[in-house]
């Protein structure tokens, strides 16, 4: 896994998560990958080792597990793979 992408059910949730995630990890704002959604969406990119910290920060700021999902991303271009991680 190269990095984790967090996708959200709404733009509001993404902006809230951006603030909360930045408190605990080096998160970057990125567009939702095409493999996950063809629509426009704000996602967060975080290092794999920060996953649990960010997960905790999202819960602490009031987001429910059904409002976000984490994906493991590996590779680039045509070789890129995106896998849904369990646990919201």
């Amino acid at each position: 896994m190269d990095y984790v992408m967090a996708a959200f059910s709404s733009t509001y949730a993404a902006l809230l998560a951006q603030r909360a995630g930045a408190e605990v990890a080096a998160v970057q704002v990125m567009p939702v990958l095409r493999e996950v959604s063809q629509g426009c969406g704000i996602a967060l990119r975080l290092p794999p080792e920060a996953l649990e910290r960010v997960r905790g920060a999202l819960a602490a700021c009031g987001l429910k597990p059904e409002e976000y999902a984490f994906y493991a991303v590996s590779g680039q271009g045509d070789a890129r793979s995106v896998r849904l991680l369990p646990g919201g």
Partner: protein
Amino acid sequence: MKMIDARGKNCPIPVVLAQKAIAAGETAFTVRVDNAAAVENLKRLAESRGYQAHPVGDGEGFAVTFAASGTPTAQAASPSQHAAAGDWTVFAGRDCIGDGDRELGSSLMRMFFYTLTQGDELPGTILFMNAGVKLPTLDAQVAEHLNALQERGVKVLVCGTCLNFYGLADQLKAGTVSNMYDIVSCMARSAKVVTL
């Protein structure tokens, strides 16, 4: 024909399931969904992968039938082949994209530069003026992307007058302090200038 039941599944799961079917080589299959947004996402997916999509309301939602038209493509088509790589300029005269909510606009700006770093169609030059100079100085994520772009040959010019005006001259994290002569010259030599 393969039937995928994605009813009750939130975005982007219906698209993910359809993508798996395409990756598996299915040339005709149907995805059942329960909302119009999912139908639109599936239609865009079909278009980008060389399929025709036929959505039909079935009383409990929609059934979107995919049918390969010609040779399905593994990935979306390249969005633009109009300008040669490096033959265009990005002009950032503000620190967020668009009017309206500033936090959203700031996120869109970070996403823009992130996306540039992920692609191969790079601009030759990125120019920052007025409040745009806050990006290579105060925004750590954008500055990181700009440094990555510079390593790939993109020229990043930042208006010195503007840096001085905002008191940011000693906080430049990416790019080169420049002036109006250089900036106008870059614009004049570009096939197109994209203003954010």
